[in-house]
């Protein structure tokens, strides 16, 4: 019995060695096959971490082989039977092992015979450590195949480059929006709607970041811009115009000159100055009062804001009637409206800054989307810098009061709104004196980074102090937009059947002006 067990131990040791070598060879085959499979896969499916994936298979294959080697323990009966066959022992060992506990008439003799024959045989030879020639050949073929696949150009590289460019583009766009958020937060001119603006930008940034492609990301910008535009107060231009008219009117009076200057500088300062003026009414000379009443009456006549007009009218009439207290009360109302104007301007500036950021994001995304459509994703890094939009040429945010707005400035009303308009190229002092009533014929439009026709692209207009987004009248930019749109129609992803429709739409945009 003990001899048989010794035989089993020796066979088991030899079998473990042979199995170890065999499983190592299996692992090698598995690892190389995995690498080859990955090399094939990455030619069919774009996969970025191909090297990691390919390398991953090697330890996995080794681990599986090692686990199998550890788990698999051939039974003693199997070892004996294998040794019988491989050593030509004529089933002596397997019979002896199977009947090791039997005590038949011939069992002892049989066991003795088996042990004797085993002693003469080289038991480890039953389980030789050898490399399977087929496996070695397979490894060599797979290795050459995998190497060739790794070295040959991969058509998926372009797809991966495009994806990378898409991500970069989206990240830049998201950063542009984040920059806009930061700019609004750091502006020092808080507005009541800052929280809403930040929320809209936050959502847009998240959507841009999470979008599957630049094209998808683009789809989130327009709704955000529409939401932002709803936050802007449509009455601001009228109030601004009224305030400016007031400043103009007061500038011609001795008592109101300082208030006029303050109003022109800043509505908030103007409000404080008007309050100061109201408190000084009692001490004014009759001549100054009369002069002031006339100026207020003139400003009242020019005011487009009804509240402002009423307050100015009341102040004027009270002064003329000698009721200084009522006049002071009316001027305080005017001051309150100037405070309100300051808040509206702050909101508009925040909205403009936000839209400016979104437009910067849109430019980068649109450029990348076009490159994707043209199969040039790999050139994404050459795309427009997101800051390009942010640094816009500043076409001014003039209110376009009247038809006589200065060229490109649009601040109108004599002194212009250099401080707020930022209409580079035409100076900070609007020279226009237009006081026409055509305010309604112009439209505020944000034109970040888009030069006014005739203005050099390489000569960006500097923004005024605290100015984020310059505004230009619709009529001044429509031609440029129309042309840009028509050019883009030929280059963008517009189906042929729809292209004429789009072209017709943009062509019609210019017609009203042409008709004029």
């Amino acid at each position, binding site marked *: 019995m003990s001899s048989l067990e010794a035989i089993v131990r020796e066979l088991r040791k030899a079998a473990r060695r042979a199995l170890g070598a065999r499983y190592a060879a299996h692992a090698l085959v598995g690892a190389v096959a995995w690498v080859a499979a990955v090399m094939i896969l990455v030619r069919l499916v774009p996969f970025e971490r191909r090297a990691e994936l390919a390398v991953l298979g090697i330890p996995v294959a080794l681990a599986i082989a090692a686990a199998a080697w550890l788990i698999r323990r051939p039974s003693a009966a199997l070892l004996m039977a294998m040794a019988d*066959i491989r050593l030509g022992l004529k089933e002596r060992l397997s019979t002896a092992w*199977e009947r090791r506990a039997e005590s038949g008439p011939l069992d002892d003799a049989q066991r003795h015979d088996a042990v004797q024959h085993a002693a003469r045989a080289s038991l480890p030879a039953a389980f030789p450590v050898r490399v399977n020639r087929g496996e070695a050949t397979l490894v060599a073929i797979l290795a050459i195949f995998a190497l060739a696949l790794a070295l040959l150009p991969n058509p998926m590289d372009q797809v991966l480059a495009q994806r990378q460019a898409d991500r970069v583009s989206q990240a830049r766009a998201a950063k542009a929006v984040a920059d806009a958020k930061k700019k609004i937060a750091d502006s020092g001119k808080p507005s009541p709607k800052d929280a809403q603006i930040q929320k809209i930008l936050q959502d847009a940034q998240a959507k841009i970041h999470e979008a599957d492609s630049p094209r998808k990301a683009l789809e989130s910008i327009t709704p955000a811009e529409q939401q932002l535009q709803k936050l802007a107060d449509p009455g601001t231009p009228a109030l601004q115009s009224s305030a400016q008219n007031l400043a103009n009117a007061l500038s011609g009076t001795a008592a109101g000159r300082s208030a006029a200057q303050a109003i022109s500088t800043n509505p908030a300062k103007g409000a404080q100055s008007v309050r100061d003026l109201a408190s000084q009414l009692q001490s004014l000379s009759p001549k100054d009062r009369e002069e002031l009443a006339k100026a207020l009456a003139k400003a009242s006549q020019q005011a487009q804001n009804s509240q402002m007009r009423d307050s100015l009218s009341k102040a004027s009439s009270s002064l003329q009637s000698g009721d200084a207290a009522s006049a002071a009360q009316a001027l305080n109302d005017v001051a309150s409206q100037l405070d309100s104007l300051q808040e509206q301007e702050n909101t508009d500036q925040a909205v403009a800054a936000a839209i400016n950021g979104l437009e910067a994001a849109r430019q980068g995304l649109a450029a990348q989307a076009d490159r994707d459509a043209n199969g040039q994703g790999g050139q994404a890094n050459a795309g427009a810098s997101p800051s390009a939009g942010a640094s816009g040429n500043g076409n001014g945010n003039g209110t376009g009061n009247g038809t006589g707005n200065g060229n490109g400035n649009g601040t109108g009303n004599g002194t212009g709104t250099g401080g707020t308009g930022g209409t580079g190229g035409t100076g900070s002092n609007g020279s226009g004196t237009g006081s026409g009533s055509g305010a309604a014929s112009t439209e505020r439009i944000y034109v970040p980074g888009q030069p006014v026709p005739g203005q050099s692209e390489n000569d960006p207009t500097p923004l005024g102090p605290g100015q984020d987004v310059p505004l230009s009248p619709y009529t001044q930019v429509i031609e440029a937009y129309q042309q840009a749109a028509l050019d883009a129609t030929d280059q963008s992803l517009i189906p042929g059947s729809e292209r004429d429709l789009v072209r017709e739409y943009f062509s019609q945009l210019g017609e009203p002006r042409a008709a004029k």
Partner: protein
Amino acid sequence: MIAEEPRVDATRVTELAQSLETELARLIVGQKALLRDTVIALTAGGHVLLEGVPGLGKTVLVRSLGQTLSMSFSRIQFTPDLMPADIVGTNIIGDTDGRREFHYQAGPIFANLVLADEINRATPKTQSALLEAMQERTVTVGTQTRPLPSPFFVLATQNPIELEGTYPLPEAQLDRFFFKILVPFPSEGDLLEIARRTTGDSTPQLKSVADAGAILTAQRTAREVPIAEHVLRYAARLVSATHPDRSELDSVRRYVRWGASPRGLQTLVLAGKVRALLEGRYNVAFDDLNSVAQPALRHRIFLQFEAEADGITADRIISEILEHTAKEPASK
């Protein structure tokens, strides 16, 4: 003397078989396989059907076997007019102390070694009488059943040609033969040796190397030879593979009408055990089974007519089965 040896002394069996083969080889030239298979069948206690053309020494073999074993020997020449009573004996009227009464006259079957020469020339009725005695090892005449001597070993011969006027043995009766041994025509060298040995002024005289007791002891010892489970399963697979409804071999499914019976498996294993002893081994090996598969199974596989038309023999079918049956190692 050998019969008194301990029954587990397997070396005695090996020596007995070797001495028997050696002694027979003095007279039988070549035909080593024939001698080996005959000794195996004898040691296993089975009967043998020898098939070969006339003049190949079948009768000489049986007669020589009788001489070397010191056992009673009978030869029955089967002819169409041979009757069962001519084999098993009959009751005859005789005088006993003045009285006439029936006495049983034993037939030639009452011998240790019986040569049934040209067994296929007798009628089925007569064949059945012999085959019943082979299976039961008893003879019933009238109302009395008498046991045959032990050991009882029948060697039947039949001629594969000259089939005119013969009665081929039916399948059920063929199954009762332990082995069917084909006696091949001697090689040219063997023919020369036969001529030298048998045409001189003297022929070799065989000596007895064993008696009935030794044979019986050998038969019991052979049954004690252990066989491993996976070797036994291999034997079962071999037999199972001869059946057209179980075999995966196209040739078996196409040409075989009936496969070997369980008696074929018994024969295979028992013959394997004897062969293992004769090889000086105490366990049955795959080789033992393969070696005895042809004589053990060839008369138990019944072929379709299509096989005969295509020249397919049972031996060829068995060879294919041996070639394709897996020797699965032990699983536990």
